[in-house]
């Protein structure tokens, strides 16, 4: 089957103004600006199949938003191509956007001073959703998102979590086939996040909706995505399953030990002592070279222990390590200078 999203060698170059320093520099900027080219997206290719939930990850300025803007038809790429639902998003904007849904993080599309329901009704008219479909969709989403309690409340008095739920519903009333989400859980508390995730899973399962989401919250990724794309400096570093990623790249485990007595020499051969406070010590070891239980055995032979615990690294640390150490350079290519910020 044809992938629902096909991105090939996508590239987007911005010209950004190079600011001169100081007052005289600022003055000269007014007359002759220096431009510098920044490749926000630098040759990205991937396919997404119908029904996938894909996490699009990367540090700030990696080019995630730029990609999303291209895929939602807001930006024209410099070179390369993208076909979504068989259309070029930036070519036939009005026809294309009627078939996608997009939620951009903290920006709400709801009418601020009016009840949530007014925005929904407006969107029904804008998208030309048949009234019956609109009603049944609204009833369905409203039940799952538990919106009944605030659907008649003006948006300005909603909590952030309620607003986010309403925004999600607003993006889906016209039954899009693809949902683009930019930081859907940013700023929400745990309960609210969980609700949003459950809903995303629901529409994905019930309506076969394809979802591409960017997030900084890796528990979103762990709970929702079977597959992740990792982007840095405009280049795709990783495209594959989440399980495979953690298996391959989470290497350093931590061993936290509390001693029952005071010891002076607590160094181990196969682990690095990271911290020591009173009787508590933290070691780091490479889980692929060193067996954790072997380490514990060694410790038990030499010391009296009050407690010990082996901590597997958080996905967050794994991902950070991938960025920092550039573990996944595409085709062994060398990156452009790391200090270049690619976020215009």
């Amino acid at each position, binding site marked *: 089957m044809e992938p629902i999203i096909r991105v090939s060698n996508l590239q987007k170059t911005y010209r950004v103004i190079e600011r001169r320093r100081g007052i005289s520099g600022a003055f000269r900027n007014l007359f002759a600006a220096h431009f510098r080219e920044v490749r926000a997206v630098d040759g990205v290719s991937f396919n997404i199949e119908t029904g996938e939930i894909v996490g699009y990850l990367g540090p700030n300025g990696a080019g995630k938003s730029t990609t999303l803007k291209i895929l*939602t038809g*807001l930006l024209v790429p410099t070179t390369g191509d993208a076909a979504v639902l068989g259309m070029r998003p930036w070519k036939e904007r009005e026809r294309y*956007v009627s078939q996608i849904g997009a939620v951009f993080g903290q920006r709400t599309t709801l009418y*601020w001073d009016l009840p949530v329901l007014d925005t929904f009704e407006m*969107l029904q008219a804008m*998208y030309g959703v048949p009234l019956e479909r609109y009603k049944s969709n609204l009833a369905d989403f409203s039940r799952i998102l538990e919106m009944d309690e605030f659907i008649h409340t003006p948006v300005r008095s909603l909590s952030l979590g309620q607003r986010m739920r309403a925004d999600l519903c607003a993006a889906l009333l016209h039954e899009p086939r693809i949902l683009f989400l930019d930081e859907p859980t940013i700023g929400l508390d745990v309960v609210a996040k969980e609700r949003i995730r459950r809903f995303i899973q629901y529409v994905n399962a019930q309506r076969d909706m394809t979802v591409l989401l960017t997030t900084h919250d890796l528990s979103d990724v762990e709970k929702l995505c079977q597959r992740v794309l990792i982007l840095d400096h405009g280049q795709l570093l990783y495209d594959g399953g989440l399980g495979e990623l953690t298996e391959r790249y989470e290497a350093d485990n931590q061993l936290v030990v509390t001693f029952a007595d005071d010891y002076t020499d607590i160094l181990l051969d196969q682990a690095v002592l990271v911290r020591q406070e009173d009787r508590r010590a933290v070691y780091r070891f490479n889980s692929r070279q060193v067996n954790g239980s072997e380490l514990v055995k060694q410790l038990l032979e030499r010391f009296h222990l009050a407690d010990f615990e082996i901590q597997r690294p958080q996905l967050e640390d794994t991902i950070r390590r991938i960025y920092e150490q550039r573990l996944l350079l595409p085709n062994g290519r060398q990156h452009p200078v790391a200090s270049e910020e690619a976020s215009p």
Partner: protein
Amino acid sequence: MNQVRLLFKMWSIQVRSQMQYRFSFWMDILSTMVLNGSYFLAIALVLERFENITGWTLGEVAFLAGMSELAFGTMDMLFSGYDPDQFSILVRLGRLDQYLVRPVNINLQLFGSKFMLRRLGRMFEGAAILVISFALTSIHWTLWKVIYLPIVFLSLVLSFGSLFVAGATLIFWTVQPIEAVNILTYGGNETITYPMTIYPDWLRKILTYVIPFIFLNYYPALYFLDKPDPFGMPSFAPFLAPAIAVIMLFLSFRFWNFGLTHYSSTGS
């Protein structure tokens, strides 16, 4: 037809939103009436003392001011989505992007996005000044004059509107609103409330050949008030207003479309 229905639906939403703050709404209407009315009052007091400005009596100047104020207020109500100051905020907050991911023409959405009912204050004020003018002057009403008056009014509205559209377009490059644009819009409105004879030659030339505001208010006024033309323009000069409005509107939307293309290739 569908599009018109959609526009009215968006306007009704706007009206309901603005009516959420009833007190501020009425205060706004009242204060714009008083504030803008006071400018005219100043002119009126000067004319009281000097009888006329370069041959224009109070009633005649009131015609210029009334038309200009009524038209500007109307324009400000309809074209607020393009008000450069407002539009700059729209771009900076990313709201424009949200409009662009909806399957509705972007201009329709902008016209529907800010239906500023509180501009009624300025419209009332303009209408009141126009009524004063009709009372103080004795216009020889003919059928053609009755038909042409609303056409002139509409031409003024569209011409001011096209300045808003052009000013908003600049935001695609600058992001921040540019003060010089306000000189054209608000300054333009101010300039044409006075008879053109008070201005130096160079300024009048600009208002004739660069931004031809002279044909939108002054020349039509000469026609309505049966006053002679001191500048010796061709006799059809009072009737250029609709043509100029159409040309300005056409050019400004051409520029707008060009700006929108630029925006989609650069983002903001």
